[in-house]
């Protein structure tokens, strides 16, 4: 306790506050009054505390906001009327989901299956059919999960100020439900008025026929012998373009054959593509087998991600390709950049620009091949995930971004809980110990719940919670690592910044050769333990607010109303 020049102790702030607030009894108040006559410091503090009270009162009473129009009048019925509305919304949402599935998803799925893309889900079919990408289905599903969770979280975050406004939300849901209930024709009919939507098993455009619109086709067989003055979009089992397409050809098919002329680009996501005709612009392919026959002519570039690539034709500009096995026998007017397991350049090949190849073994270059410059060869580094190639690291980047986004959503939605979780993680021992139990324990409990009388719902809910916690563990550990580096903070954006930095570091660390899996396991254990501790604390019942206690502190001991200040 500080001493004043007359060696009497200064009064505690609480005593002065209680005096200002007129909460001291007469005797204590007199003592304060007497003291402040001789102690300038306490008198000053007393005055400042009083001014602070006035500032507080003035700030509180200022009429800064008028009563909002929404509550300008008493509305006793609002709450009750909402009850049935919520029931309607729920029913509409269910109907909407059912309609979406039965009118849109199911017909498309059937057509895709007819087209040879059976199984799994729509998006993964469209993107991941190529052999090059095999093995990525599970990864993609996880990304989808995170993306959907993030989208939902963001939607909730952005709309949370309106969530309270039942009417707005009710209208939103109801309109969504109604829009989904509106008759949706099978496939994509009626998207545009001028669209010529062909929806049948097979479509043949005869040689003498010209269609002056874009062609959208979903079915089994597509054959274009005539002319399409526009683009062709095809979801088909087999597509054959032997006529003339003035626009682009976008094709998802088991097999695509282009023997005619395409004035625009060809973008093919197929099992195999055979090109014998002319494509005036570029070709992009993602497939298992791509053959550019000797009669084929591509005006611009060829970009391909395939298992087997054979180029016999003429390429007007560059080739960029990733493959398992490739043979180059045609003419390339530009550069060749290739990456894959093996490359053979035959004697008929001609490359006017530079050629580079990154592969597991050197390319076989026939002696008669005409190369403007020697082929540059680089050994494909044997990384731990080399079988996935460059795409793996792209996906790691996407993952890191997804985690940062996921973390942003979590911290935005639950700032208090996030803070507690990070604090729990910083206890180190306890979360790791608990994590060792929780990581396998909850998963086993969920499985047990599913197969016993506890029930599928409880089991699946538990498993989903476990899964979300597993995802969160990177965010939690990343936040702690970020705080190690940049220091602790309680503010929102600095917290996000630290989390982003930390997540980037832990994602890189989890990919370390040999020990990466151990680090990942450690992150799961640590993060999950921290979340478990924070959850446990949250679920503790609040019995009474905590009374502050500060033994020995100058104002720590709560003062009863009759407090007097005794001289030291």
């Amino acid at each position: 306790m500080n001493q004043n020049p007359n060696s009497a102790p200064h009064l505690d702030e609480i005593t002065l506050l209680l005096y200002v607030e007129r909460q001291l009894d007469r005797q204590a108040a007199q003592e304060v009054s007497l003291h402040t006559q001789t102690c300038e410091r306490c008198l000053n503090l007393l005055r400042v505390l009083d001014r602070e009270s006035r500032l507080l009162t003035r700030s509180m009473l200022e009429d800064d906001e008028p009563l909002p129009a929404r509550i300008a009048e008493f509305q006793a019925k609002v709450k009750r009327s909402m009850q049935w509305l919520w029931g309607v919304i729920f029913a509409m949402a269910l109907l909407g989901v059912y309609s979406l599935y039965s009118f849109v998803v199911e017909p498309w799925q059937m057509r895709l299956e007819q087209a040879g893309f059976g199984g799994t889900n729509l998006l993964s079919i469209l993107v991941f059919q190529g052999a090059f990408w095999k093995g990525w289905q599970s990864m993609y599903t996880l990304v989808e999960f995170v993306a959907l969770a993030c989208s939902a979280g963001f939607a909730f975050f952005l709309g949370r100020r309106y969530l309270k406004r039942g009417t707005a939300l009710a209208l939103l849901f109801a309109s969504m439900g109604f829009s989904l209930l509106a008759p949706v024709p099978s496939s994509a009919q009626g998207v545009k008025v001028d669209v010529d939507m062909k929806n049948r098993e097979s479509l043949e455009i005869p040689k003498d026929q010209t269609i002056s619109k874009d062609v959208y086709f979903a079915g089994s067989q597509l054959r274009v012998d005539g002319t399409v003055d526009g683009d062709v979009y095809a979801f088909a089992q087999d597509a054959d373009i032997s006529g003339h397409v003035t626009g682009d050809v976008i094709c998802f098919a088991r097999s695509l054959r282009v023997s005619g002329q395409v004035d625009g680009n060809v973008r093919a996501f197929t099992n195999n593509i055979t090109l014998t005709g002319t494509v005036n612009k570029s070709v992009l392919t993602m497939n298992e087998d791509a053959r550019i026959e000797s009669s084929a002519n591509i005006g611009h570039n060829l970009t391909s991600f395939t298992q087997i690539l054979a180029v016999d034709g003429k390429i007007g500009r560059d080739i960029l390709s990733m493959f398992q096995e490739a043979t180059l026998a045609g003419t390339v007017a530009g550069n060749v950049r290739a990456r894959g397991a093996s490359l053979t350049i035959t004697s008929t090949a001609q490359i006017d620009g530079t050629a580079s190849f990154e592969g597991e073994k050197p390319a076989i270059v026939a002696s008669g091949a005409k190369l403007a410059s020697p082929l540059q060869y680089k050994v494909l580094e044997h990384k731990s995930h080399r079988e996935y190639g460059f795409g793996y690291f792209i996906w790691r980047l996407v993952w890191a971004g997804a985690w940062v986004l996921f973390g942003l959503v979590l911290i935005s939605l639950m700032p208090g809980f996030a803070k507690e979780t990070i604090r729990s993680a910083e206890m180190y021992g306890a979360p790791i110990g608990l994590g060792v139990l929780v990581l396998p324990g909850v998963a086993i409990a969920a499985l047990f719940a599913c197969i016993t009388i506890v029930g599928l719902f409880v089991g699946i809910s538990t498993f989903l919670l476990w899964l979300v916690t597993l995802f969160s563990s990177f965010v939690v550990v990343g936040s702690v690592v970020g705080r190690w580096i940049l220091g602790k903070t309680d503010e929102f954006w600095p917290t996000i910044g630290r989390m982003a930095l930390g997540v980037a570091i832990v994602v890189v660390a989890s990919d370390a050769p040999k020990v990466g899996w151990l680090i990942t396991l450690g992150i799961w254990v640590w993060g999950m333990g921290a979340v478990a501790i924070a959850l446990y604390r949250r679920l503790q019942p609040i019995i009474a607010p905590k009374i502050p206690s500060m033994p020995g502190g100058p104002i720590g001991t709560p003062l009863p109303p009759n407090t007097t200040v005794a001289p030291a």
Partner: protein
Amino acid sequence: MEPLRPGHLSVPGKTEPTDLIAQARAGDTQAWGDLYREYAPAIFRFCRRALPSKEDAEDATMEIFMKLRDKLVQYDPSRSFSAWLYKVAANHCWDVLRRRRARHDKDMEDVDQLPLETPEPNQLERLIEERSGEEVRKALDKLGARARMALVMRYYSDMSYDEIADAIGVRRPFVGVVLLRARHELRQALGENTSLAAGGTR
């Protein structure tokens, strides 16, 4: 030294409309509507100070008046209507905050256990002089729920220490400590970007 003692209503010193209250108690919907228009702005401001968002305050205002209407028959006319009204409002807002477990966010912090530093009067005075009412209201957002509720109850609705103790569930002798800690939190929030944060000699 006379601390400012604000009145219970938004307009200090205004007398209570006893006739209107009596009519509303008797079931007169017109009177209840008038009573709502009379008191709703003050209760909305109370909720606006006590709760984190405007939407929360709007909802709370409506819910408080719904509760008030249902409880109006229990009101003892011999006591202050506005005091009763603020008591219901304070209990409701505290319940809202407690349901959200917002208390954990700040009140569970370790800092709650630490002794407070007595501020340097000159520094504190500068801090007070430099801050506007709007800045103080914004700073309330950074406070823990208990600290915020205590300040609002005390300095907006002028509730007594007994009423505050009753509303936030602490014993009467500790209300002063709660208020002092709340002031310290507020000073810290106000001085976060300056060197004027509370602190000084012990």
